[in-house]
């Protein structure tokens, strides 16, 4: 068996570049929600020493001095580009597991080796504009490792076939344990205490010792380093266990009405997600929290949950349950940073048990028709074109996204204006 791990290079920055050629060749960073931290960097930005996860304000100087293009995250765009990349890959291989927004494991046919990987890479690049790196090996852990080497070694031009390039141990010796998929820093420290520092060390380590030190999961990783497949390709995504919608505010919020607006908005979004998956939620959890990064301010966080009389995905019902929970946990006098809602106990909308207190069928139909009409309008005219009253209209608490590129992928109304 052969497995390839395909990983998009600097995915968010690359997406932005497909539609804004002026960003090509210049350092690009993408910031997290609320323009807080750096979450993606182009190669040029990495070379400037801008670190992943660092707050934007710490880098303002570097940004200005080097003409760095700084963008808010545009998840609608990244999501669309991701599904294009995945669809190109799916057309080319017998099986695949979408591992994250910008990574996929592929199972390869016997004949599909390095030259196939180059063809794959060129096709994704031409069709979508996104550059990818490909690592090939016999197991998922080794494919991940091969991909890392492909990325870090420019001479390889984005493709590395671990098992066809001489002794794999040479490559393994260059990778620290902390950088092996599934190991991480904490487990790497434990390994280091036994003198195991690189992937090659772990590959040849005494397996019973590895199991005692890292447990069964660690042993599996070590076996995968030996080319023995222990992790299978998960081609079907596991069903959703819960749906969450939560965000930090653009500025601290102190008043209950503003928190209510925000929570109603997130709850409406969660309701949309439920209906899109034809799911109903049995339980609703709500939380609030202040900003733990401001220890000088009074701190408070709290959560509450309720089980609905029967599972629902009807937004007005969800909002009224969420707001009643919020009113229970809200304490005045704090500067809140975040609120959100989780829905759990998800069941398929098709097989719901009717309860004693169920509404007559006609009323249920009318509610479903209303929710569907709202979803349809919002899909066509943009998020929250139609809103429930509780969501408010001013939304002064909304996320800061001052430098977001346009919704190229998702809105006719957002079409970019071009010059003649």
């Amino acid at each position: 068996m052969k497995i390839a791990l395909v990983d998009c290079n600097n995915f968010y920055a690359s997406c932005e570049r497909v539609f804004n050629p002026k960003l090509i060749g210049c350092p690009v960073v993408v910031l997290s929600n609320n323009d807080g931290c750096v979450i993606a960097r182009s190669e040029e930005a990495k070379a400037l020493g801008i670190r992943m996860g660092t707050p934007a304000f710490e880098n303002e100087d570097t940004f200005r001095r080097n003409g760095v293009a700084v963008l808010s995250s545009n998840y609608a765009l990244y999501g669309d580009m991701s599904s294009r990349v995945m669809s190109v890959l799916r057309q080319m291989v017998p099986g695949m597991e979408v591992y994250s927004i910008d990574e996929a494991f592929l199972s390869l046919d016997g004949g599909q080796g390095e030259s196939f990987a180059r063809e794959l890479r060129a096709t994704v690049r031409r069709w979508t504009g996104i550059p990818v790196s490909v690592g090939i090996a016999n197991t998922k852990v080794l494919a991940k490792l091969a991909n890392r080497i492909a990325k870090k070694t420019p001479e390889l031009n984005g493709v590395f076939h671990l098992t066809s390039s001489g002794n794999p141990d040479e490559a393994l010796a260059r990778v620290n344990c902390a950088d092996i998929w599934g190991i991480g820093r904490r487990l790497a420290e434990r390994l280091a205490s036994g003198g195991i520092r690189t992937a090659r060390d772990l590959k040849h380590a005494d397996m019973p010792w590895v199991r005692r030190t890292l447990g069964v999961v660690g042993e599996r990783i070590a076996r995968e380093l030996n080319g023995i497949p222990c992790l299978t390709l998960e081609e079907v995504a596991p069903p959703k266990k819960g749906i969450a919608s939560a965000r930090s505010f653009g500025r601290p919020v102190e008043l209950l009405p503003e928190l209510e607006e925000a929570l109603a908005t997130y709850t409406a979004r969660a309701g949309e997600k439920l209906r899109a998956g034809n799911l109903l939620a049995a339980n609703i959890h709500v939380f609030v929290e202040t900003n733990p990064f401001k220890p000088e301010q009074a701190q408070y966080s709290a959560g509450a949950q309720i089980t609905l009389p029967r599972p629902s995905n009807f937004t007005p019902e969800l909002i009224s349950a969420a707001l009643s929970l919020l009113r229970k946990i809200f304490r005045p006098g704090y500067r809140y940073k975040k609120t959100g809602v989780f829905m759990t106990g998800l069941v398929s909308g098709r097989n719901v048990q009717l309860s004693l207190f169920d509404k007559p069928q006609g009323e249920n139909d009318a509610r479903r028709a209303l929710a569907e009409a709202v979803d349809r309008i919002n899909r066509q005219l943009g998020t929250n074109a139609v809103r429930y009253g509780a969501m408010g209209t001013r939304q002064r608490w909304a996320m800061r996204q001052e430098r977001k590129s346009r919704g190229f992928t998702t809105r006719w109304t957002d079409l970019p204006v071009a010059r003649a």
Partner: protein
Amino acid sequence: MIVGKPIPFEARTKLHVPLFSAIVQAGFPSPADDHMEKSLDLNEHLVRNPAATFFVRVRGDSMRDAGILSGDILVVDRSLTPADKQIVVAMLDGDFTVKRLCRKGSLVFLKAENDSFPPIEVSENQDLVIWGVVTFIIHQAR
């Protein structure tokens, strides 16, 4: 002519145009029932390769004589190999432009389709990338 940034497009929504419609009379089966065919999906016609197809809005009239007017939407397929005389969306020195691609020996021209716009000869040191091949032009009639 400069065109706008390309608009990614996904053939997810389907526009159903019924092939024919029969008014059903109560109590009688429609004589058309046995002859129903599937509805036409405009995406099927306009988008051969959804993963590689993007929409681009046009601003300007240098391509007027090729039937491309300001405000039109181009269907652009990035998976096609650009050939001589095809209309392409190109990135020239950091701007998107739509033109007819013309090759003469080793020379590359981006030709307008409007006498008031001279052809652009792309010099060696200019940065030209053919972004995609235009397959359809969507023009609103009113």
